């Protein structure tokens, strides 16, 4: 055994094994992810739409006082795409479609991040408790989950949002209340399967505490399907959210794709297609991009494809 001096402690920080190993793993997944062309398409789309959300104030000037409210230009209603100042045309109420499309990406990003972030945490905790404790706790939690799952997602979210009253925040709450059950289900199944593994027993055999076994042996092995589901839900949540907005469960006049589609749909019959088409296209691209990446991620994280 050599003396630990400051000089070879310098070497130790260079030889930070955990970090290097993590990078190796990360690049491995990244490489498998980018070897799939459809996933690359999805990634590029997501990157573009994220850039759109981040740089929104630089692309179009923010509306005052509330940037998430559509600017109204009553002097230029029902203008077709190509009109100077309104590239993608305007709606019946003089809303700039281009502004709605750009700032709508921010709204959508908020919606999906809040909903997926909160439900992932809640679902993971509840699913883990059910899987780890088992017995009547598991029974009670899973019956609650069954009740939630027995009602179709959209209908259930619609009912909750309707009860809470029309607002964008309420849409987030409604979606979160509907979606957490999926994560609880996935997590419970994972935990039950993983805790029977020999390596969990092996960890118990060396005297590890229950918390440590959960954090080091069970959770890291269980998160893969949760991550995939979260990626898919990033797209699906926006789709359902836009549906709820479309039927008027969101505040009227906010820069949100669903609201914009609904504002424009009155004009479709009279040939003013643009107000609905562009935000509709964005919803489609958003959902498509996350679904492509989600599928790619599922393949890339599958341990059976590891090292291929």
């Amino acid at each position: 055994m050599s003396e630990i001096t400051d000089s070879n402690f310098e070497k130790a920080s260079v030889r930070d094994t955990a970090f290097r190993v993590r990078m190796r793993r990360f690049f491995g997944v990244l490489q498998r992810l980018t070897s799939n062309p459809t996933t690359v398409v999805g990634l590029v789309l997501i990157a573009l739409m994220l850039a759109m959300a981040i740089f929104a104030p630089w692309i179009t000037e923010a509306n005052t006082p509330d940037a998430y409210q559509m600017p109204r230009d009553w002097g230029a209603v029902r203008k077709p795409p190509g009109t100077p100042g309104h590239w993608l045309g305007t709606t019946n109420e003089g809303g700039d479609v281009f502004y709605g499309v750009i700032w709508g990406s921010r709204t959508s990003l908020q919606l999906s991040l809040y909903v997926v972030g909160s439900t992932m945490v809640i679902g993971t905790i509840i699913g883990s408790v059910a899987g780890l404790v088992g017995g009547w706790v598991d029974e009670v939690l899973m019956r609650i989950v069954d009740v939630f799952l027995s009602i179709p997602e959209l209908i259930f979210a619609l009912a909750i949002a309707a009860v809470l009253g029309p607002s964008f925040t309420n849409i987030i709450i409604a979606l979160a209340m509907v979606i957490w059950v999926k994560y609880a289900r996935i997590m419970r199944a994972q935990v039950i399967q993983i805790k029977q593994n020999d390596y969990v027993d092996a960890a118990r055999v060396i005297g590890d505490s229950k918390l440590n076994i959960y954090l080091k042996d069970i959770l890291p092995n269980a998160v893969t399907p949760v991550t995939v589901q979260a990626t898919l839900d990033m797209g699906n949540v926006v789709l359902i959210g836009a549906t709820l907005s479309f039927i008027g469960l969101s505040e009227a006049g906010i820069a949100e794709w669903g609201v914009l589609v609904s504002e424009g749909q009155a004009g479709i019959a009279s040939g003013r297609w643009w107000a609905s088409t562009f935000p509709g296209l964005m919803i489609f691209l958003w959902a498509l991009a996350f679904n492509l990446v989600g599928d790619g991620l599922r393949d890339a994280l599958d341990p059976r494809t590891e090292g291929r």
Partner: protein
Amino acid sequence: MLDATQASENVASVRDLKVHFQSKRGVVHAVDGVSFDIQDGETLGLVGETGCGKSVTGRSFLRLLPVPPGILAGGAVSFRPHGPCTACEGAGCEACAKTGRRASGDQPVDLLSISLQDMRRIRGDRIAMIFQDPGKALNPTLTIGAQMSEVFLQHRTAELLDRAGLPPDTAGAVRRFAAQEPRFGDGLILKFPPKRGQRAKLQVALNQMVTEALAETQVPNPAKLMDRFPHELSGGMRQRVMIAQALACNPDLLIADEPTTALDVTVEARILELIRALQQRRKTSVLYISHDLSLVRRICDRVAVMYAGRIVEIGTTEDVFANPRHPYTRGLMAAVPTAGTARGKLAAIRGTVPELVDPPLECRFAGRCPYETATCRQNDPSLQPVSGGHSVACFIDHPTGSQDAPSFDRVTE
């Protein structure tokens, strides 16, 4: 059974252990009144066919039973941790094979009734276990180094702090890291100065300890191995890692649950050699669970033969193999093919293992035994000595006094 003078040298003794499983058809008596001792420094082989309860018995030492549906229905597993050798006060003498420690110090503890906290202190430190399939016993998301570290963090916090040059009364996040009791936010504290340096020193000390433990199992380039994930290693290498982890804290008792079953024969020989060498150097007692008779004969000092949740015969390896007294043991030995066995002729014991759902009061081997008589159907034989240290549970050696006692001379079929 052992005589009284030897009793103090037992590192562990199992008394009337009963483990039941609740199934839909009734209570399965998987382990039904098993008693045996493990002497200090010996290798005890536990042989039997699949489902006879040998793994459950081994796991009960660490209280590793699936609860529920596994139910500890009774019995005791007392374990006597090593203390300083009474003859030489830890200096190392003949009696303790120069290790300075022997199983005569502390009072025995009942592993089945102590608190979980005490159990955790024994697990991995005083009693370790090697699993059957090393591919499944290593966490796929942790590197070998990280996995090996756990055992040191769990049981060798003081030594770790000492090696890292930190005071033994170090507190806060650094201490919690060294004792593996992480709290929320500790990771962040340890990433930045002033604690970052201490964390790095601990990592160096930890890496040293892991490398030393790995080097003991003769793996090539242990420092490099630490960065590898389990799936990047061969089966033999994985089992070496498991052995290194199991023996890292110098346990007094090692439970080896068929450690070579998943390996091929050439690797098996080397792993056995390794276990044998490490065991003899450290004077660790080993409970070797296996279904391979020839292997047990080669490496074990004593053998216990299990059948249907009971021990039917126990004794020194020479006694049991030279003079098997139980028909089941005889059947097992006859079933081992040798070089002289004619083609197409493999001996087998007729019938199958009985269902252990509410077993009736009769010999468990009745129905498969070639020597069985009416006595065997009416009474349940218990384990009785035939000679010093050799016991058997059969009416052939211990007749009940009735007329139709079974005998090896009379095949009844």
